[in-house]
């Protein structure tokens, strides 16, 4: 049953990864901006959830939506006030800009919270399904991660704002001609990306230790997942996230966890060359 256990761990990891990448992928696909702050957003969400749990005794799963709402506001303001001004400039400019903003946020978090790893400890017991043992807090995190990803999918599919986002992604100029306020849609999209990051942060705080030094790690995962799954679509991020979770889980089992990250990156490089649109991506979208 060892493979069942590895697979279950991979699925749990994959659900979190999908949730981490889906906001990043949305921003990249719609705005054509690589948000280097995404990892820091996740950790910021994790910190807020952790301190709410430590001082106010609020369960991180309950804090998930308030944290996400806070991050939405932050993201909206950053996009509206800062990034929108240079959105039409070359890749290097926007990427460097978000890198700079990331350094400010990272430094601020380091000073405010120090780099000590912190983790929420929720003892919710464990569950045994045919020899596969999972702790219940992880199962809950997995279910909520899937639910969040599904929620974003619903927003994009059914709401007016969601349709506007998809329209801007397909053709910015045509969308503007149809009366969509592109700048506002950009801000909402970036806000949604931050929303997902914040919610994920609350979930991650239950599963992994929260520390500022892992922001780059989460950002790296988001890259890899976007390349595996394809850009800008929810199903792409879901497939990419699950694939990476399962691959890392098995790679860690066979070759040791220290090589799991390496394998993720190598897969990404190979895919970049062989199939740059990703497994689920459509040709012609950039």
């Amino acid at each position, binding site marked *: 049953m060892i493979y069942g256990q590895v697979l279950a761990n991979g699925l749990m990891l994959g659900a979190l990864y999908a949730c981490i990448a889906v906001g990043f992928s949305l921003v990249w696909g719609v705005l054509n901006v690589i948000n280097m702050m995404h990892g820091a957003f996740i950790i910021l969400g994790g910190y807020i959830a952790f301190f709410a749990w430590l001082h106010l005794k609020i369960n991180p799963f309950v804090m998930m939506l308030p944290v996400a709402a806070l991050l939405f506001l932050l993201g909206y303001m950053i996009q509206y006030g800062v990034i929108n001004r240079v959105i039409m400039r*070359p890749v*290097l400019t926007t990427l460097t800009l978000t890198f*700079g903003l990331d350094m*400010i946020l990272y430094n601020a978090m380091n000073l405010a919270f120090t780099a000590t790893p912190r983790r929420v400890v929720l003892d919710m017991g464990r569950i045994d399904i045919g020899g596969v043992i999972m702790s219940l807090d992880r199962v809950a995190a997995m279910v909520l991660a899937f639910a969040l990803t599904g929620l974003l999918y619903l927003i994009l599919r059914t709401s007016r704002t969601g349709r506007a986002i998809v329209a801007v992604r397909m053709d910015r100029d045509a969308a503007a001609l149809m009366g969509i306020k592109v700048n506002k849609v950009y801000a909402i999209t970036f806000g949604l990306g931050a929303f997902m990051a914040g919610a994920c942060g609350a979930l991650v705080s239950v599963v992994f230790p929260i520390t500022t030094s892992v922001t780059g790690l989460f950002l790296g995962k988001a890259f890899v997942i976007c390349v595996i799954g394809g850009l800008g679509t929810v199903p792409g991020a879901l497939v990419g996230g699950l694939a990476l979770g399962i691959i890392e889980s098995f790679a860690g089992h066979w070759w040791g966890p220290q090589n799991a990250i*390496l394998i993720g*990156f190598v897969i990404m*490089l190979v895919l970049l060359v062989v199939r740059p649109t990703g497994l689920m991506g459509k040709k012609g979208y950039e």
Partner: protein
Amino acid sequence: MKARLPYILFAIWVLALAATPWVASNYIVKIATFLAMYGAIALSWNFIGGFTGYPSFATAAFVGLGAYSGALLQNAGMSGAWLPLAWLSGALIVALFSALIGLIILRMKGHYFAIGSIAIVEVLSQLASSWSSLTGGGEGLNVKFLAGGPDFIGRVFLYTMLVIMLMAFVATLLVDRGRLGFGLRCIQQNEDAADMVGIDVTRYKIYAFVLSAVFCGAVGAAYSSWVAYISPTDSFSILLTLKAPVMVLLGGPGTVFGPIVGSALFVLMEETIWAKFLDYHQAVLGVVIVLLIFFLPGGLLRLRFKKGAA
């Protein structure tokens, strides 16, 4: 435009750096060495990022690979008088590596190229930490100190870095005036059109990529003997990979003197800021980047002739 003044200023600048061991303290010599080192790194990035317009974030991969190759060769016996050979070999290994990698990742554009180049840094860094038998893993690698006392060592590495910077500068001049520079600028403006008028786009891009790597490799190899200790996080620092484009953007991408001006300003700013706000170092760098992008989009050297900015 082709005035002699910038060249004279540049010559004065190089002579001033070269004169520091005789007139100033070892601390100043160290800063002068950093100025030359980052000058070389910024000039290197300018080939691919400035002339060609490809957002490369692979600088740390080249510097780190150069550092590890240099250090391993020195530990294998190329020390003492053989040091320059170790540095040269380090640079050649990096050049070869960049040509092979370039064949693969230069097929991508824009964001995909940027991500691909960051991934190269990550992969090499992971390899350096997990291949313990060769690289010492996360504990890092010790390199034998050069004999001769701090004054002598300071001079040796100052002149080494200066020579690397001058070589990068000469290469920049040659590229800027030659066919290659013209081709690279065409690629920057419109790659498909450049292809159409008969520029061998793939070959030119690989040339630019190798040029952006080889001097970084030399810098890395020399750096490893200078500090005598290297580790994966230090050598493949993602921060270094970002500093290179920021320096060039500060000075003026695609110009000959921009990288020199930008890197000099950046290092001096860093030294003065670092001394005062150790805790806020990253945040200050972040603020500098944000201000730079909003207020100096073409770099300092483009200030006067904004109309002609490409």
